[in-house]
């Protein structure tokens, strides 16, 4: 039998976004509100001075949350419905499953992204090159968060534990780290701690591209190299260590 890869991808989107959204629209509201609420607070507190960073932060948070949501959703489907067990004993490929589920998370994020992109066009108005830089950084951020999310999901055996990890990682990587504000606000030597987070590199690239942070070409190149390298390493680690089937 000839098996359709497209169907396998669409199945994940149907189960994890289309059908779920239809029956639990509150999830969509939650996905939209989280990054926007941070944006509003930062904008009020800075009296509009940090609106650019807040929009970039919102974009990073949306992307990172996709990975964390993936973690919770895969874990929920695996542990509570035994879906992964059903798919392991079938011709479905793990890659098609993960990519389909990741795509479903993007669909959930689309409304928030659309609002943030419109706000970005109004307040940041980037040129074509800057827009490409922003898109590239967000794409790497998405891949990083998806790999982290999938890794945690396959290792988790309890949905409560999984949701706790999801919230913890989201807070550490998108609220505490300098995503919604410039890294220069953090006093030395604590600033170096921020570089332990991949979101810091994405934020620096985006803030530099939007003109709210001035970095040397070398520093920007380093940010790209670290973010790209980290994403590549995570992809390799996950493809080797994530558990599709039990051993």
């Amino acid at each position, binding site marked *: 039998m000839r098996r359709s890869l497209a*169907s396998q991808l669409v199945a994940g989107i149907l189960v994890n976004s289309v059908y779920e959204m239809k029956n639990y629209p509150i999830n969509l509201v939650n996905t939209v509100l989280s990054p926007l609420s941070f944006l509003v607070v930062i904008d009020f507190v800075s009296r509009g001075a940090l609106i650019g960073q807040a929009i970039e932060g919102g974009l990073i948070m949306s992307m990172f949350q996709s990975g964390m949501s993936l973690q919770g959703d895969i874990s929920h489907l695996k542990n509570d419905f035994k*879906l992964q067990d059903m*798919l392991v004993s079938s011709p479905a490929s793990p890659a098609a499953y993960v990519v389909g589920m990741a795509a479903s998370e993007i669909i959930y994020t689309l409304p928030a992204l659309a609002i943030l992109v419109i706000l970005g066009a109004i307040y940041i108005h980037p040129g074509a090159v800057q827009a490409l830089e922003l898109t590239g950084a967000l794409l790497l951020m998405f891949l990083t968060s998806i790999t982290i999310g999938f890794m945690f999901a396959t290792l988790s055996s309890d949905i409560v534990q999984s949701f706790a990890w999801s919230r913890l990682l989201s807070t550490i990587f998108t609220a505490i780290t300098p995503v919604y504000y410039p890294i220069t606000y953090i006093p030395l030597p604590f600033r170096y701690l921020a570089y332990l987070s991949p979101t810091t590199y994405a934020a620096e690239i985006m803030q530099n591209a939007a003109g709210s942070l001035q970095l040397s070409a070398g520093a920007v190149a380093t940010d790209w190299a670290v973010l790209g390298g980290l994403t590549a390493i995570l992809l390799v680690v996950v493809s080797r260590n994530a558990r599709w089937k039990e051993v």
Partner: protein
Amino acid sequence: MGELVTEGLSKVYAGARGARALDSVSFKAPSSGIFALIGRNGAGKTTLVRILATELAPTTGSASINGIDVVREDKRLREMIAIVPQESRTISWMSPKQSALTYLMWRGFGYSEAKKRAEESLARLNLSKYADTLNRSLSGGTKRKALAAMVLASEAEIIFLDEPTTGLDPISRKDFWVILRELARDRFIFLTTHYLEEAEQLADTLGVLGEGRLVAVGSAPSIRGRIRYQYSLKLPANSPVPSVSHGEVTTGKNGEVQILTDEQEAFAISRKVSDSGGRFSIGPVSLDDIFFQLVGESTMAEEAAPGAEGGWSA
């Protein structure tokens, strides 16, 4: 005709569980009709199913279905298998039709074909009227049927069902048997159960698993044929055991005593026990008695004490 073959199959879980779940399981059985694996909770049924369904790697040994090795050729085998795992549930925010449709799409069917098959499968199981009802609104039995509809809709030739009727009421369970027979018409069904009646009613081949070891395999009549005596008398734990002139006396792990003997001797012993004020149950040998003799435990031990077996108690 194909075969299911296991050779020295063992599984020891690593880490905190550290338990030997399967201990050198070797058997051959035809890969057609229904194979029912019987055993108490924790006997290793799920472990064996998960290994055969390529979900779990064995620690040692090998297994193959129709000549396809479950470890080395797992991808090839996955082309032809489907499973409804123990404790699997239908996804609450979807309907039975959406569940079957997306399961088929994950198996690689195009949308139109998957939709057609999903609708046909639901119709075969009399679920058409629930096709668009959310799973969370369905009864337990209907949810189980919806899970069966998912695998029935697929092209899988080999279907694993891990305790498919656990938790169902007796009527739903018997309805489900009809579905299983339907499934087994053109496919190989490997199911686990701790209901002996179910195994005896449904299975072409039975396997009896006790503490990770396969203690018997064969058809129900052939397993019955292992028992020389046709009457069973059971005494509660700590009861004085009367002398038995001919028969087999087995003391179970909970102290319960089973005496297998012929009709005349069984009634003679029961009179002795009754005269001394003891409690007992007596009846023709059932598959549960055979299980007790093989494994040293009753499959029903948690649910019914000796002497509580309706109609035969004295």
